[in-house]
């Protein structure tokens, strides 16, 4: 193996005692400290900060409007224009989900229901948000365009049970989406 000998840089006397560099750093730190005290922190505008301190004051301050279009937050179920649950519980998301966060109990739509021709919908749909890794595979695999990763990222709870999003919660987050593919139209 080839060996490369690296020469130590020659330091001048001033550099060797390094007090100069420490002092220089101290000045920079103190300058930032002073500016933050008077409300003129560097980068305050970009971080939407008050200027007192360099940190953005989350959760009082949020950066939500800066989130990109493709941001992958919590997965949620959506309904279509006609308020039909888009999910038909094909369980492909449950199958693809890498951390096994999704659990679906399929169910049959009763024959007297308005959407009886769809035949199938989830009886229960649970996503364990402790397990979810926000990978977006569920959205990608869904043949019905029923599950989307929403920009919501604040998922908190004090118990494990609270961290499981059930069907009602998922539809509440997902809401209504228009203009998606609709296989269950009048022709069907």
């Amino acid at each position: 193996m080839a060996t490369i000998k690296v020469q130590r840089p020659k330091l001048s006397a001033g550099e060797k005692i390094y007090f100069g560099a420490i002092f220089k750093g101290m000045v920079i730190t103190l300058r930032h400290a002073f500016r933050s005290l008077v409300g003129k922190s560097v980068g305050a505008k970009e971080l939407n900060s008050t200027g007192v301190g360099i940190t953005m004051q989350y959760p009082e301050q949020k950066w939500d409007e800066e989130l990109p279009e493709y941001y992958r937050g919590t997965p949620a179920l959506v309904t279509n224009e006609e308020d039909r649950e888009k999910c038909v519980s094909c369980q492909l998301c449950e199958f693809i989900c890498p951390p096994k966060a999704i659990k679906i109990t399929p169910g049959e739509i009763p024959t007297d229901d308005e959407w009886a021709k769809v035949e199938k919908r989830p009886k229960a749909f649970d996503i364990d948000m402790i397990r979810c890794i926000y990978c977006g595979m569920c959205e990608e695999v869904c043949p019905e365009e029923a599950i989307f990763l929403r920009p919501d990222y604040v998922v908190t709870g004090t118990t494990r049970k609270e961290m499981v999003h059930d069907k009602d919660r998922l539809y509440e987050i997902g809401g209504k989406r228009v203009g998606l593919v609709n296989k269950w139209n009048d022709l069907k």
Partner: protein
Amino acid sequence: MSENAPAVEEKKLPKDLAAENGMVNVQIDGHWIQVPRGTRMIEAAKIAEKEIPHYCYHPKLSSPGNCRMCLVQMGMPPRPAPGEDPKYGEDGYQEIGWMPRPVIACANTVAENMGIRTGGELVEKTREGVMEFLLINHPLDCPICDQAGECKLQEFSVEHGRGESRFKETKIKKPKNVDIGQNIRLDDERCIMCSRCIRFMDEVAEDPVLGFSQRGTHTSVTVHPGHRLDNNYSLNTADICPVGALTSNDFRFQMRVWFLKETKTIDVNCGTGANTVVWTRGNEIFRVTPRQNDDVNSAWIPDSHRLSFHELQNDSRLTAPMILKDGKHVEVSNLEAINKAAEGLGMRQPNEVAVIASGRQSNEELYLAKKIATALGTDLLTIVPRQGESDGKLISADRNPNTTGAGLIFGIDDPTAKLDAIREGVSTGRIKALIVFNENLLDEAGFKQEDLAKLEHLVTTHTHANPTAAAAQVVLPGAGWAEKRATYVNVTGRLQRANQATIAPGGTRDDWETLGALLNKLDKDYQLPSSMDSVFNALAKENETFTGQTFGSIGDLGVVITETGVTIPLLDQEKKRKESGIIVG
């Protein structure tokens, strides 16, 4: 060899060599193989390990050849001109002249020097064409269709489909979600008109209620007006349906098949012991399907047996050992329950105790039951007869799965013989202690509630809560048929193996553990068995009918260990159809 014999014998041609054994030479995708004369081309390809996609062909049914999916290219040697001798090449075969049009492989039989091409441009193009026609009116139901994951149309459209449809017109509308029978749901739009279900109901179930109506693209499967598909074999049509046109009401929207784990086991609802596959996810059974065994159940199973697994998963399961204290059953540890059971039994005179085993127990459990009876010194050991009516197909008149096994292990012809003596002994009060394995005495055994009250010590094992357990001093929970490895001997004398698919609920131990522990308490010389296999091995050592068998040697299809002279009616019918050439078998 004598000197007069010709130095070089005339070399025999491959066709003559094959003919000596009743075989013919067939070239499949360039390779020559020998197959029995009269083999269908599709089966010959199977022997050559070449898959020919098909929908309507089923070896157990007649071959109408109506799906056209199995089209292959066929070739035969050209017919020699008058007076011309056939020409044989260096390898001894004639040159094959390929036909310009494909033929169906399912209904044609092979011939000497025939060539079959299961691939190539012509075959690929025909398959693509057939697939495209089949998919024209097929709905995009896969996300809601129970067949998805085991659908032949899905599989072959991946292999031979175009990926997109050129059909711009409106698809034909047909009835969907039709209730045609107690267990079966029909979706006509998904049907590809293979007619397997129609042929099954006609030929095997002998209840021809299904048929086609309408013509052309409007053809649809229907039940005959005024009839319903309520036959006890109707669910087999859902199994053989290559698409999701016929689906099971019981399994409808329960679980996608790709989540389910398959366990090969056997059915225990009657003496036939039909071979089955149990489909589970986690510790829950979702469905049971038949498994092909040409010596037991062909490829079918009655609906009543198939759906009986729900019983194992109901709320009345016993989950912990219990003893009677001050008129109430309290849960105790296994050890305490076994001790209490042994205490009450061991103190009796031999003529005061009796053992009622069950024909639903496995060989291993019956072996331990017999040992328990021997340890108690009693000869009052019996199983409870469970006779019904045979349906003339697969359901045996003997509803016990292991009557034959009980007879072999007890060493008597009629293992149910002593039941009357025990019943009489209990009602007169002569028998004071009784062990009952897996039976409710008030059912088939014909005991009366007041008889049970006369007993001083009643020990019972059972999977479910029942009146006998309610009257017992000691109740031990038992594992159900899908929850244990075990062996059974069916009515024809075939030793078969059941495998464990799920785990018994609560603190339930395997039955051999419970029985082994009880025997250990009653007979100090008996060592606790270390495993299920060791119990079976001990049985094989002591009983010469089982000698030489192990859990491994039984295999998935079982082995015949004794001759009973009993036959399974459905197999006799199948044999006739096979002999007459209607089916491949």
